[in-house]
């Protein structure tokens, strides 16, 4: 039986972390996601489940704490917003290289630099094209509701441990701050140390017992052949993610003549724009990528056979639009629309952009 | 009073010829060989084996633990 509550996105995420048996959260205050750590500190989950909550001295320290706990097989996460995620990118690269399961949440705000505290979607490149150095990718989940902020925590950990890889939940300030009804899942027990050692003892650094060789967690491989093998091993994971764990949503695409592609809060607003367009007799559909990596390339390629033009709607100056263009391989015109600076585009603005840039 | 006699065994391929063992030996047992090992290092050896007491000073300062130390009691 689940529990229905009215909650802020950030708080729903925090509560979901406690309920799905997360072992530790390490974070640092930054607007617009500080509620995550504030909620956790107030809830005192060490009394509910023994979950560790620690405010680190910086985002940098927090991601390295995540790295430490993850190297021992614990379920561990951190959250921040854009400038703080930039600080974490070194650690994220290390997590990927050392093949550690962990969840990082980015509640995106306007950038670059110190930027604004209002929502944006300008971290798409950072999230999906690497961000940190080296040959790696992040599995990226983009919630577009408070319900998804809650549900995606457990989903993210399932992926993280399935692949021994870091997972990013890419939210934004609007989703993080808004309040909606959310069905909270039942409390799951945290994994016991005994169970953890049974499941992950082949790689986790929990203390070398007599029955095995020592476990080493590292992303360093000074011998080129070993480094190449390591990176190929990572790439195989990402190929498998693309095959097995792609997620997207199609809304009114079956008879669509035009297509909007949007994720997160832009998808919510675009849904309304689709409604308004349909009232005017414009047959437009919405493709909402739920995972940004893997990206619904095949689905877009197929839709490009059907529609006359595609509008990528993002709260930025044009980032996902490049992947949309790549996916449709120039079969149809692809344009971008989006407000920036923390301004949220309205359904009417999206419809106007569709009419002016795509339908003409 | 029982005396002790000691001896060291130097893993000549591990020894890097750093000579840190020499100043800590109270009996001047150790010298560096004129031979070199596979890596080109002159290795340590007992040039005065009769006076070694097996005190383990050399063993404990050797960064590479190339030295194993032995000691046996002998009646005076």
């Amino acid at each position, binding site marked *: 039986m689940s529990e229905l509550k009215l909650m802020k996105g950030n708080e729903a995420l925090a509560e979901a972390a406690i309920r799905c048996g997360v072992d530790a959260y390490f974070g640092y205050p930054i607007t617009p996601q500080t509620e995550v750590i504030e909620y956790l500190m107030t809830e005192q989950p060490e009394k509910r489940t023994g979950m560790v909550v620690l405010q680190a001295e910086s985002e940098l320290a927090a991601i390295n704490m995540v790295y430490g706990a993850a190297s021992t097989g614990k379920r561990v996460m951190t959250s921040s917003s854009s400038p703080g995620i930039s600080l974490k990118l070194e650690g994220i690269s290390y997590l990927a290289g*050392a093949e550690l399961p962990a969840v990082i949440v980015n509640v995106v705000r306007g950038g670059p630099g110190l930027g604004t505290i209002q929502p944006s979607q300008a971290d798409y490149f950072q999230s999906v094209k690497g961000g940190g150095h080296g040959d790696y990718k992040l599995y990226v989940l983009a919630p577009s509701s408070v319900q998804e902020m809650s549900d995606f925590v457990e989903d993210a950990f399932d992926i993280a441990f399935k692949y021994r890889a870091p997972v990013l939940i890419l939210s934004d300030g609007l989703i993080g701050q808004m309040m909606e009804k959310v069905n909270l899942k039942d409390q799951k027990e945290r994994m016991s140390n005994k169970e953890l050692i049974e499941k992950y003892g082949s790689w986790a650094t929990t203390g070398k017992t007599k029955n095995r060789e020592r476990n080493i967690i590292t992303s360093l491989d000074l011998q080129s052949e070993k480094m190449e093998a390591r990176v190929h091993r990572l790439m195989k994971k990402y190929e498998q993610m693309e095959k097995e764990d792609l997620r997207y949503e199609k809304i009114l695409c079956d008879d669509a003549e035009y297509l909007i592609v949007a994720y997160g809060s832009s998808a919510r607003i675009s849904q309304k724009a689709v409604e308004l367009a349909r009232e005017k007799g414009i047959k437009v559909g919405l493709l909402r990528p739920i995972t940004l990596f893997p990206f619904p390339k095949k689905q877009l390629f197929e839709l490009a056979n059907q529609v006359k033009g595609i509008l990528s709607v993002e709260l930025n100056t044009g980032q996902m639009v490049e992947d949309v263009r790549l996916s449709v391989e120039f079969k149809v015109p692809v344009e971008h629309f989006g407000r920036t600076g923390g301004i949220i585009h309205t359904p009417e603005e999206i419809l106007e952009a569709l009419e002016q840039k795509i339908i003409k | 009073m029982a005396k002790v006699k000691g001896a060291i065994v130097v893993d000549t391929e591990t020894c890097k010829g750093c000579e840190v063992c020499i100043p800590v030996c109270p009996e001047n047992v150790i010298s560096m060989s004129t031979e070199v090992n596979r890596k080109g290092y002159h290795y340590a050896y007992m040039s005065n084996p009769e006076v070694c007491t097996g005190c383990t000073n*050399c063993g404990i300062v050797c960064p590479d633990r190339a030295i194993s130390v032995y000691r046996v009691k002998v009646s005076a």
Partner: protein
Amino acid sequence: MDVLDIIKPENQVFCKTKLMTDTPLSYCPGCGHGTAHNLTMEVIDEMGIVEDTIGVAPVGCSVLAYDFMNIDMTQAAHGRAPAVATAISRCWPEKYVFTYQGDGDLAAIGTAETIHACNRGENIVIIFVNNGIYGMTGGQMAPTTLEGMKSSTSPYGREIATMGSPLKMTELIANLPGVYYVTRQAVHTHKHARKAKKAIRKAFENIKLKKGISFVEIVSNCNSGWKMTPNDANVWMEENMFPYFQLGDIKVDGKLK
């Protein structure tokens, strides 16, 4: 008595601990890292705690510490070992968690992580090998490089006016209430090495007390970086490093000495 009679297995009184692997150490001849590694592993072996010990390796000359220490180890990004160790210790409160760091790792890039782990009083051991130079990258100036000391980035000697004074990180963190035991040791002679081993043992035993950080600084040579022979480097260290980085206990049982 023949040497062959003496070197029988039953007469062995000293050998390499089984908690060091067979991999040849990559450190320069005479480098204190080798001794520091071995002393630490000897302590863990003698305490019988290998099954509950998790080490955190730094970036620096000892980046490959996990190739030599036969225990579970995690590689940390440069300077971040105290944060990594914090999380391991918080999630596994009964484990013996230690970091093993150099002077660049702990006192330059890792300054914040060092200070805050110490301030929080994490239940970990920090082993700090201070040789006043960046060895791995070829001998650059470190926060602990002495005034006037030459390095590849202070080729005319460290100049206080433009480069600051050598940083006494150990004294800084000793003042924090979360720090329980602070000591400065050396490993270049048998006397120093035996004292250092006792200090490392005390540090690991402190973990059971859950009273906070145990911080063991080991002032070491870097004969390659200092461009001397190992024995000359050890003499130079005694004459120059020890007057500034004074050996001995700085804080015991939570009280400054």
